[in-house]
């Protein structure tokens, strides 16, 4: 068993990080916001954490928190201009923001440009990743019956009616965006320190699509579903390795199957059985 785990430790790390990313997006999705900026938040935090670790010798804990807070701060500023956007327009605006972030990462000083940033200390292991994930999971679990959770769900269902019962939906949207950015930031820092090398391409639209697909497959209204979706989709390419260059087709096909026949995702299927 241990041999299996250590042989696949890279994959297991990837699962953990992708699960954290999917959960971070699920927060906004659960509030009904199609805010597709997680990859950008991940990238911002990855670079901040990598730079502080390499240039100033900070340890992972400090660097990661710095990165995550940086991402959260950017999210707080982003929330203001996108505050009135909904649906597809919000999606496009956040995608655009993601591209701007990626281009800044290519051009800004200290980032190492398009060739990437390397020599990040590898002070992260599987336990760290799953420790963070567990912490987040416990937090979300404890919060599930609170008024905050109710406010988020109501905002998603009908924003106007939610305001009509006294819910400050603007604050819900801001809160889920910032919290999601913080989590994505943690994931970014974990990614940077687990891989000792990052490039701006790691945090572009391709990554964003991956995260979104994981959430949809797992179930858009469920953070647990998002995590499971991420795990499933991370492992999938390994399982279908025999398809070689045709591998990608399976994740696309699964996404199509889910959206056409099981729109509530894996979590929804599970709920329907119960």
């Amino acid at each position, binding site marked *: 068993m241990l041999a299996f785990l250590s042989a696949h430790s890279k994959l297991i790390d990837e699962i953990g990080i992708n699960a954290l990313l999917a959960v971070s997006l699920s927060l906004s999705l659960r509030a009904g916001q199609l805010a597709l900026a997680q990859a950008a938040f991940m990238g911002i935090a990855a670079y901040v954490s990598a730079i502080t670790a390499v240039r100033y010798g900070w340890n992972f804990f400090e660097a990661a928190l710095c990165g995550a807070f940086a991402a959260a701060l950017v999210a707080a500023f982003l929330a203001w201009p996108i505050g009135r956007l909904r649906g597809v327009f919000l999606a496009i605006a956040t995608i655009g923001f993601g591209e701007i972030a990626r281009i800044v990462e290519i051009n800004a000083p200290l980032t190492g440009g398009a060739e990437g940033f390397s020599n990040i200390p590898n002070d992260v292991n599987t336990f760290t990743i799953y420790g963070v994930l567990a912490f987040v999971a416990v937090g979300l679990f404890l919060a599930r019956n609170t008024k905050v959770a109710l406010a988020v769900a*109501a905002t998603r269902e009908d924003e106007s009616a939610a305001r009509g019962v006294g819910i400050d939906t603007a604050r819900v949207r801001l809160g889920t965006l910032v919290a999601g950015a913080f989590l994505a930031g943690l994931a970014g820092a974990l990614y940077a320190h687990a891989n000792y090398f990052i490039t701006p391409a790691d945090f572009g639209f391709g990554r964003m699509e991956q995260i979104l697909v994981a959430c949809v497959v797992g179930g858009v209204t469920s953070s647990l579903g998002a995590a499971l979706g991420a795990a499933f989709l991370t492992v999938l390419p390994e399982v279908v390795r025999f398809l070689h260059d045709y591998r990608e087709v399976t994740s696309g096909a699964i996404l199509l199957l889910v959206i056409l026949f099981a729109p509530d995702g894996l979590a929804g299927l599970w709920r329907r059985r119960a």
Partner: protein
Amino acid sequence: MSELVVEALRIDYGGVRALDNVSLRVPGGSVVGLIGPNGAGKTSLINAVTGIVRPSAGSISLDGARLDRLPAHRIARAGVARTYQNVRLFGALSVADNVRAGAFRLAGKPDARSLDALLRRAALHDVGLDRRAATLPYGEQRRLEIARALAGEPALLLLDEPAAGLNPRETIELREVIRGAARDGAGVLLVEHDMTLVAAVCDRVVVLNFGERIAEGTPAQIARDPAVVEAYLG
């Protein structure tokens, strides 16, 4: 007890004047009917009170505090609750969660007993608390909306055509729900087309036509008012 005071309200949507110089009062503990032909501006008035629409002129106050400058959620927190012409429940949430959401402005959360009491006050009996709201039959959805509105212990309750789509028995039950709300101290503004219901529960009635107030009085006075008859038949 709280009183809603609407003074000289004017609402313009782009080039269209939906309401012009409309004033009315809803004292706490009373039921005021708001009637008029379609397009008379009734829902616009409710939208203005709840903050969905900003009036171009005039004022709206509850207990002397101005509502018309506040964002919608603040108005709700001040104790204003409403139901909608087209039912707007939180469909994917449970019956219980819908009611809990209604109580959002209050401290703490209602326990199972309070939830049951609220549902009964809205004439909803034997409804599974965990049922998804969207799966309820129409009549029960309407009443769940009322239960949600009552859950916040509102000082002002705005009902937008609550009887639409209800059968005669349900409409009779609705009368008691409305009177009960008023008895508990809320001021109730009832927008309705069902004149029998209006006559049965309202203390006073305000009539709108083309965005203006054309009559006001007891249900009996309104029924005899020639201007009102003209508005509906002309």
